[in-house]
């Protein structure tokens, strides 16, 4: 048994909390759910292994030489994955700073706050490493099964990437605390995390569009410019890629570097982490004054009052805007592709239409959750003299209104290129948005808006239905825009998804 308040004792406590969080996230406390979650995880692992086989099997037996093209390709993939890990780690570090759950207990206890926070940072790193390893495992397993054990070195590289991502996230977040202060760090860190997660993919796609006219992120990595400007073969920059390819010396260096930088960060930042956590805990929401109320109360219908309220709440919440509109960021590459090809006189709508429709569906799903489930004053609305049907209808109108406003410029530009495609795209956007809203209506729950990030875990069924519905409507619209009758196929699937959702909807019970 370890001594109370020692590092190992605290680590065991953190591990127990982390394990229980993870189990309750998967099972929501139910035995049936636990069984279903286990079956789901096994099925997902199997699916991922099949997917990995399909994507990487052809590389397994190849005796990859340490040539620049291979190293650039592998390094690019690693950096891409690392940016996502960094994004996740920043989220976790920010949450740890601002979560007040047990802070009072910790800081009023005689235990060393430095030790507690060191262990907490270790937990964040462990979570980042576990997630990275779990996601990479199918690919590494397939490569090792088909191409030999040398590929197992990938596990070491991925674990080191998780450790470095956590160290970087700690440094970035603490730097933000020092630069912008405790009040603003939360929002900025979350926005930065989201942008880091998206920017690398989007940047590569934009580079690919300009260099090769393709939206593939790998086109840029294999371009002549990139190969010509890559560092020399002996550079330490290639160590991770060399380690993946089975270079044991490189693997030892990468793992040592990862563990070393993480330990150094924990040692360096654990004292400051505590100080900043205290500062964050003392931050109450900043007072925000609105423009002086000059126009007076306006005459409006009940529906208008509800719509206006929804729009105002979304407009004023910078964090929510950053979260919901992040999907719009992904529209940048296809929009750029449209512009590039439109400039050259090619018809590009076939590429653009499904992306836009898919994004509209996903965005509408998020907005619908906020509007329908994330009602912060449900009792006020429920006790108002307005029927529940009218309330829901007003909220649907608010969502569709926002989608129409956001996507109207894209549809307008598209119509300059092809009127028919533009009209079909507009209809597809509204249909996908309506379908996503309907799914959220069927799976509506009562939640706080601040739980927006967790909405996907509260109903995985709704999340999957929303995604598949958006995909089906995207395919339908793309085929319809190109004048093909085969559009009826995905449309039928989309309707089947909606019918299925309606049949199993908890709100029908």
């Amino acid at each position, binding site marked *: 048994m370890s001594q109370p308040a020692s590092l190992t004792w605290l680590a065991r406590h953190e591990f127990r909390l982390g394990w229980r969080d993870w189990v309750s996230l998967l099972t929501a406390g139910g035995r049936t759910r636990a069984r279903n979650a286990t079956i789901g995880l096994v099925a997902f692992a199997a699916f991922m292994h099949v997917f990995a086989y399909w994507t990487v099997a052809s590389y397994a037996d190849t005796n990859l030489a340490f040539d620049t093209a291979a190293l650039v390709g592998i390094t690019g993939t690693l950096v891409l994955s690392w940016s996502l890990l960094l994004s996740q780690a920043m989220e976790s570090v920010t949450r740890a700073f601002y979560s007040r759950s047990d802070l009072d207990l910790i800081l009023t206890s005689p235990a060393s706050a430095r030790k507690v926070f060191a262990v907490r940072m270790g937990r964040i790193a462990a979570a980042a490493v576990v997630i990275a390893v779990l996601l990479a495992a199918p690919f590494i397993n397939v490569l090792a099964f088909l191409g030999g054990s040398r590929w197992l070195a990938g596990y070491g590289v991925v674990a080191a990437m998780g450790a470095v991502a956590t160290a970087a996230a700690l440094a970035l977040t603490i730097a933000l605390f020092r630069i912008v202060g405790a009040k603003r760090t939360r929002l900025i860190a979350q926005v930065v995390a989201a942008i880091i997660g998206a920017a690398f993919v989007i940047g590569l796609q934009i580079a690919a569009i300009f260099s090769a006219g393709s939206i593939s992120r790998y086109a840029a990595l294999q371009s002549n410019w990139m190969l010509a400007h890559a560092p020399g073969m002996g550079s330490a920059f290639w160590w991770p890629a060399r380690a993946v390819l089975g270079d044991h010396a490189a693997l030892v260096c990468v793992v040592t570097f990862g563990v070393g930088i993480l330990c150094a960060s924990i040692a360096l930042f654990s004292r400051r982490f505590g100080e900043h956590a205290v500062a964050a805990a003392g931050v109450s929401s900043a007072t925000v004054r609105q423009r002086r109320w000059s126009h007076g109360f306006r*005459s409006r219908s009940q529906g208008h009052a509800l719509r206006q309220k929804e729009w105002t*709440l979304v407009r004023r919440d910078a964090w929510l805007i950053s979260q919901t509109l992040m999907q719009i960021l992904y529209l940048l590459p296809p929009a750029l592709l449209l512009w590039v090809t439109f400039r050259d006189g090619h018809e590009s709508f076939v590429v653009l239409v499904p992306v836009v429709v898919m994004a509209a569906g996903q965005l509408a799903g998020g907005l619908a959750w906020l509007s329908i489930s994330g009602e912060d004053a449900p009792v006020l609305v429920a006790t*108002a003299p307005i029927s529940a049907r009218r309330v829901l209808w007003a909220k649907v109108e608010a969502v569709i209104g926002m989608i129409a406003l956001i996507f109207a410029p894209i549809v307008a530009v598209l119509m300059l290129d092809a009127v028919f495609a533009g009209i079909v795209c507009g209809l597809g956007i509204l249909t996908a948005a309506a379908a996503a809203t309907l799914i959220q209506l069927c799976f509506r729950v009562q939640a706080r808006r601040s739980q927006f990030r967790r909405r996907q875990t509260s109903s995985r069924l709704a999340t999957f239905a929303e995604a598949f519905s958006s995909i089906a409507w995207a395919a339908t619209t793309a085929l319809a825009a190109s004048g093909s009758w085969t559009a009826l196929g995905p449309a039928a699937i989309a309707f089947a998804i909606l019918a299925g959702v309606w049949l199993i909807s908890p709100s029908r019970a």
Partner: protein
Amino acid sequence: MKQDRPIALALRGVSKRFDRPAVDALDLTVYGGEFYALVGPNGAGKTTTLRMVVGLLRPDAGSISIEGIDALSDPVAAKQMTAWLSDEPMIYDKLTPYEYLEFVAGLWRIAPAAAEERARELIGWLGLEPHAHERCEGFSKGMRQKVALAGALVHDPKLIILDEPLTGLDAGTARQVKNVLRDRVRAGGTVIMTTHILEVAERMADRIGVIAGGRLIAEGTLDDLRQQTGKSATSLEDTFLALVAEQVAAA
């Protein structure tokens, strides 16, 4: 005397069961212009009763009439005359008090000019003027409670129902809330309030209803309740404890 007044709220045989009966064939009458306090031990069914009155729960049996309107068959008309305030009211963090009141007035379809005047009045009464144009996200519990109370009053309800409205409020804020409620009753409004603070019920209420096990076990003025226990000159606390003890013994 009370019987001369119109009935503001009438519950007849109202029952609600969750895993066990929460409210059991409850009959309750509250008259117009009356301040009625509903007291009872934890889990007695007070909140469930009031949530049924305001349409947040549907009873399994019985009828609810608000100002002569059947609240179960015409909930919209009943809600037009009612306001509800809970102990932890939810307001919109990103709206200012003025914007919140404008939204509430819109939901209750109150003419903008009248609602605006009323909003200014309420904000003044409740001492919210310095914060009227600040977003509610930084407000303390007391300030949030005041904003919610202003929201409950901005549409000038005939019947205002409050569930533990003074819980967690400082003395100054609690006094402001009590003053506003007293003014409301003086102006002819009806107030029904649940509370665990028996002194508040004793001082403010015209009549007190004691509920236990989902049934109304005693009702009346403080003197009426004392007579029921057969102990004069005791506090409401002693009377209440005696009534509840009798109920437990009977059960």
